[in-house]
């Protein structure tokens, strides 16, 4: 397994996607619903990557955008939002009917369990067996039998439903803050983030804010993905818009409605992609375009009010063995006495 040990992985979204994403790769969204890595997803679309396979728990607009742009041809999914209820045809409906994508239906729990098993390096993991009666288990998609199986519990002899562990080629995720090495800190709704990111062979992280490693070291409980899993770090304010990020901004429902409104029509959704993905160079231009079209106030109405967490105090006495005078309370001697003791006890070896 590749380990990413560089201390500075800061780069543009464009460089991150071109260096680390290959046509035909599988990938997982390491956020769902909340804090969506939409700037990174748009960069994948902009670079016209092809034949990707996606794992996603619950899509709002990103699955439809990846389908409409022809990026993905295989999807493993538990839920995909339907903005228009039953009345409107969605990009997913269209892509399935036209055979542009194959699908594997999962439940939230079993899809994430595939990731959890993969993250832990296990070949499979038990899930809640009662759902064996459903078509989710009984009907097979493109993964065939590489998904569910029934085995005997070696301790009780009962049949247990298990899912296979998966390790997607990469994960994309958006977080509140990360350091340059890639220690990624996320809070709010944790949903699938930890297991999806840890399942992947590498993680591309975008962050609202890049912080010094000291900030991470004062709040390690907020780190959901450690640096050695992360191949690229992208500084990306508004990187989850129109989804929401705690401490930064709310979701933008009227803006989402612009896409949902266009999504039922192939031409209109292509025009949406032209305007908000292909014709902007990056997330910064996207936001500038938003401000130009709708005004700064329309954007700033989303800005978060503070609701800070009480900081965790990681304090102790922090006494090291030797005090400032060179004396050790623990040992009852100073360095001179220490060396003499080693000499007297005969434990020092002679280098000559």
């Amino acid at each position, binding site marked *: 397994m590749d380990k990413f040990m560089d201390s500075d992985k800061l780069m543009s979204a464009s460089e991150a996607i071109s260096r680390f994403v290959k046509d035909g790769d599988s990938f997982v969204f390491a956020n*769902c*619903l*909340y804090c969506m890595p939409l700037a990174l997803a748009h960069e994948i679309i902009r670079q016209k990557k092809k034949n990707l396979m996606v794992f996603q*728990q*619950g899509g*709002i607009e990103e699955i439809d955008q990846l389908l409409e742009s022809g990026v993905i041809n295989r999807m493993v*999914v*538990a*839920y*995909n*939002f*339907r903005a*228009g*209820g*039953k009345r409107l*045809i*969605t990009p*997913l*409906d269209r892509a399935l*009917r036209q055979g542009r994508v194959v699908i594997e*239906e999962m*439940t*939230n*729990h079993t899809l*994430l*369990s595939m990731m*959890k098993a993969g993250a832990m390096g296990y070949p499979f993991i038990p899930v*809640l*067996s*009662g*759902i*064996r*009666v*459903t*078509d*989710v288990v009984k*009907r097979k998609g493109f993964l065939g039998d590489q998904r569910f199986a029934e085995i005997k519990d070696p301790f009780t002899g009962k*049949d247990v*439903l298990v899912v296979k562990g998966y390790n997607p080629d990469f994960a994309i995720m958006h977080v509140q803050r990360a350091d340059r090495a890639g220690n990624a800190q996320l*809070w*709010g*709704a*944790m*949903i*699938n*983030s*930890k*297991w999806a990111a840890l399942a992947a062979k590498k993680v591309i992280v975008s962050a609202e804010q890049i912080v010094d490693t000291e900030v991470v070291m004062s709040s390690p409980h907020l780190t959901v993905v450690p640096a050695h899993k992360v191949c690229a770090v992208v500084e990306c304010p508004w990187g989850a818009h129109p989804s*929401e990020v705690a401490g930064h901004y*709310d*979701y933008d*429902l*009227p*803006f989402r*409605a*612009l896409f949902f*409104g266009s999504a039922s029509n192939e031409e209109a959704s292509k025009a949406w992609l032209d305007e908000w993905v292909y014709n902007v160079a990056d997330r910064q231009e996207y936001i500038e375009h938003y401000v130009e*079209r*709708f005004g700064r106030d329309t954007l700033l109405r989303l800005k978060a009010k503070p*609701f800070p967490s009480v900081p965790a105090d990681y304090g102790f006495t922090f006494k090291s063995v030797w005090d400032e005078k060179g004396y050790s309370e623990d040992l009852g001697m100073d360095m001179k006495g220490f060396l003499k003791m080693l000499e007297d006890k005969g434990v020092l070896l002679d280098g000559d």
Partner: protein
Amino acid sequence: MGIKYTIDELIVSRASKEIKDREMVVIGQGIAMAAGVLAKKTHAPNSVILTEAGLLGIEPFKVPLHIADPSCTRGFTYSCDMIDIFTTVVNRGYADVAFLGVGQIDRYGNMNSSYIGNPENFEIRLTGAGGAPEFAGYSKRSVLTMKGGEFVEKLDYFTTPGYVNGGDTRFESGMPEGSGPSVLITTKGVFKFHEETKEMYLAGVHPGVKIDDVLSDIPWDMEVADNLETTPLPTEEELSIIRNFAPDITMGRKLVMEVLINQVMRLFYGQDNGS
């Protein structure tokens, strides 16, 4: 003058009565969340609400757009993840009641939220399973609400287990003894499940709805309870809570879309349709 309410308000009010105090309640968007909060603000102050996003002990200040949005995360007591919810909470038997919306339902309360039409050659793909199969499978009870869904003899796709083939088949399939859907609330009435056969029967009708009008939607001969309940009207207090907390629910989906489109026009195009 009588009390005035929308059909969604009636459903929310009736559904909220399914929650008892001190219960652990699994909730999604929409009607379910409104019912949960209504119960918590009235007769069930010590109930604990959770969503599968890994949020436990939430106190939403408005109806969320989705199960992880800011209205759920402004102050909650336990931040875990989706695996933790399904395993340490649901699989261990802590979930008393789960709320689910219904697309298609059969006589044993099995549900479809995946495809309308033959999945190989479908008309539309609904949202998909999400968390419904395990929530309905492993919570002690589930409360089902249906607006715009349908009763069918055979599901187009079996997404979520109710009582499977009736009798004890649900429990023989591996789901906990005694668990299962307890009630279905639609725009016309209230349905429950026979204690032994587990078949659905008509238990109540909403004010002004005739029995025949309810039964005409059902493609099989459905039993009707001897002492049919009439759904109680929402109280002034309940309506005030719902309208303050969840005006979107009061309006219903169609009106919400209309209002949203007007809002889009006003915000982004500086136009006002005046409605």
